[in-house]
């Protein structure tokens, strides 16, 4: 295979991996503090993209056109909007179900996901159809043989990675992060230490969901198109990435995200059978991986919480 073509696969795969990783980090953060899976997380990404789109249209109507300003405002609006949504979900849907089996949270968030989806479909103007997402980044590109290096994609990859690194630093290096990790390890002891459990949970959900909102904007800027039903598959892939990587570990989520992107790319172009089998391939590998490493590639440090 031509080196340029190979570089193109890797480049696109990395972009895809960044989006998956951003979604997976949210799953892993939520699992860390509450041991729950927020299944509507993919739809939060979708909602973030739509909030970003609506913000863009509002700015456009106001006549603000400077691309740098627009991108910044759009990203902030999506991030803040989703942070709020995440906190609301935690406060009114997830904490009330804390006493119930963990799988009930799953059902409630599953339904929430379909509510978000249907809300956008029904109430966003012409929401049943794909919506164009504006091209706000400089679209300069360099051709190196078969390889097209695009400036906008490069910017998105860098931004995505930086965001994940920032979230990781917040969790690892700040006092807030210490509280999050304390709750994740043992919420009872954390409470005894004077940590406001409920607040930490809300903040964690806000952070994870803000990241999803950013991911939505990145998605929109990369594909230049968003649709109300992108959330379900993104959610499943994000969840799979987080679990394959090892729930509770941010590095695991990143690893899982890139792994999934790689599997899909290989499945689409490098299999002897039709590319339609790419999902069959990706998920078959996931099953094998889970058999090999039952608690994910980067396993939780504590063996078992009793």
């Amino acid at each position, binding site marked *: 295979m031509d080196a340029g073509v190979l570089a193109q696969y890797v480049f696109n795969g990395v972009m895809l991996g960044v989006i998956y990783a951003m979604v997976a980090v949210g799953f892993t953060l939520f699992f860390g503090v509450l041991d729950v899976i927020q299944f509507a997380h993919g739809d939060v990404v979708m909602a973030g993209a739509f909030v970003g789109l609506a913000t863009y249209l509002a700015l456009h109507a106001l006549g603000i056109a400077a691309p740098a300003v627009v991108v910044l405002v759009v990203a902030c609006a999506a991030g803040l909007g989703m942070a709020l949504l995440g906190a609301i979900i935690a406060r009114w849907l997830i904490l009330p179900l804390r006493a*119930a089996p963990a799988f009930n949270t799953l059902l409630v968030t599953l339904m929430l996901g379909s*509510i978000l989806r249907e809300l956008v479909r029904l109430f966003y103007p012409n929401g049943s159809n794909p919506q164009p997402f504006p091209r706000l980044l400089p679209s300069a590109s360099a051709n190196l043989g078969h390889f097209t290096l695009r400036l906008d994609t490069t910017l998105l990859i860098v931004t995505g990675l930086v965001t994940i690194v920032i979230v990781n630093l917040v969790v690892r290096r700040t006092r807030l992060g210490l509280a999050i990790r304390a709750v994740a390890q043992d919420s009872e002891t954390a409470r005894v230490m004077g940590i406001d459990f409920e607040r930490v949970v809300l903040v964690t959900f806000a952070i994870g969901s803000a990241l999803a909102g950013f991911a939505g904007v990145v998605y929109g800027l990369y594909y230049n198109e968003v649709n109300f039903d992108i959330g379900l598959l993104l959610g499943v892939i994000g969840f799979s990435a987080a679990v394959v990587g090892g729930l509770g570990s941010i590095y695991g989520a990143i690893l899982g995200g890139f792994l999934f992107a790689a599997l899909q790319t290989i499945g689409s172009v490098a299999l002897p059978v039709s590319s*339609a089998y790419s999902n069959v391939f990706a998920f078959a590998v*996931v099953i094998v991986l889970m058999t090999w490493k039952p608690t994910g590639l980067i396993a939780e440090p504590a063996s078992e919480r009793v």
Partner: protein
Amino acid sequence: MTGTAASRVAVHSQRTDLVVAAVAVAAIGAWLWAFLATDRVGVLATLLAVAAVAFVLAQRLAPRYRRALTARPRAATSLVVLAVCAVAVALRDQPYPLLMLCTVLLFVVACVGLDIQIGHCGIVNFAGAAFFGTGAYTAAVLAARGVPHIAVIAAGGVVAALVGSLLILPVLRTRGYYAALVTIAFGILFSTFLEVNDALGGPQGLKLHGIDLFGWKFNRDVTLGGTTASFYVNYFVLSLALAVAAFVFARRVERSWLGLAFDAVRLDEIAAATFGIGVARAKIVAFTLGNLLCGIAGAVYAMMQGFIAPNNFTFGESLILVSIVILGGIGNPLGILPAALIIVVVPQKLQFIQEYRFLLYGVLVVLILLFRPEGLLPRRIREYFPGSGA
């Protein structure tokens, strides 16, 4: 002397218990009939409201009358079966409600299977629709080759269990959400494979003919004593028989040593292993039994529908099956029936609001879970003597 007085009181209270149970079951039957038969919005709203109020009242009165239903499980079961049959008789010439009733009953069978896995043994299975679909496709393939239908139905279950054995190793090694991912992956893999691969009809699916059990053709209307009933009555009888069998089976398993082992494994694998319970064996048995039930239900469902396609058995349908188990209250087969009614029938009853129906349906389920975080009828603690508990 005092002895006979006490026994007289006991007999008397047993009689009142039975009366209470009969009244309750009759009321539920009447409600079910009205719910399935109506298409009028006002009636539907009233029925749902009545159900909500009745549910609350039942919860309040439950401690006093629970004995009425649990003290004599056989009598209670027969009453419920009688009530459901009465509903079917009342609906005999209305194919649509009967079809919905059959669908609910077959989903109940599959969900009882999932409940053995999830609720008893703690194995999360997000590939319910894949095993349901395995049964359905097995039925389509075998029936087309002229295999007797009774064997086809059984084979549906057996093949589903065999396909499930592919997953036994990863399922044994993983737990919780990790096991969930294994089954999610399998569920997606299953429907994608069927769609992409043309060997089994590809995306267009396969056609089936109605069930023919020993010359009794299910797709013919039934004429009995001058009245003609819809052919779905045949399927109803079969589905009900299967549902009852599944219930009885699940109850027996739960009350056996096997059931105790399941509970121990679910609650604490390490402790269970310490007490000499074969964790792997328990999990394999639970997983296989559950898939068997899913497969049998799928085989009958396929022949009743007359047509199957891959997008009947996607990850989304697996989520529907799991939703029924969760909404009913994990681990309690009794909760499955009302939950299946809500998950399967309510979206159809909301057809009048057209494109808004899934929104309202989602809101409805979220509200129910917020008011009943543990599901409609959560599993109660095991009773050593059935019916002795308060």
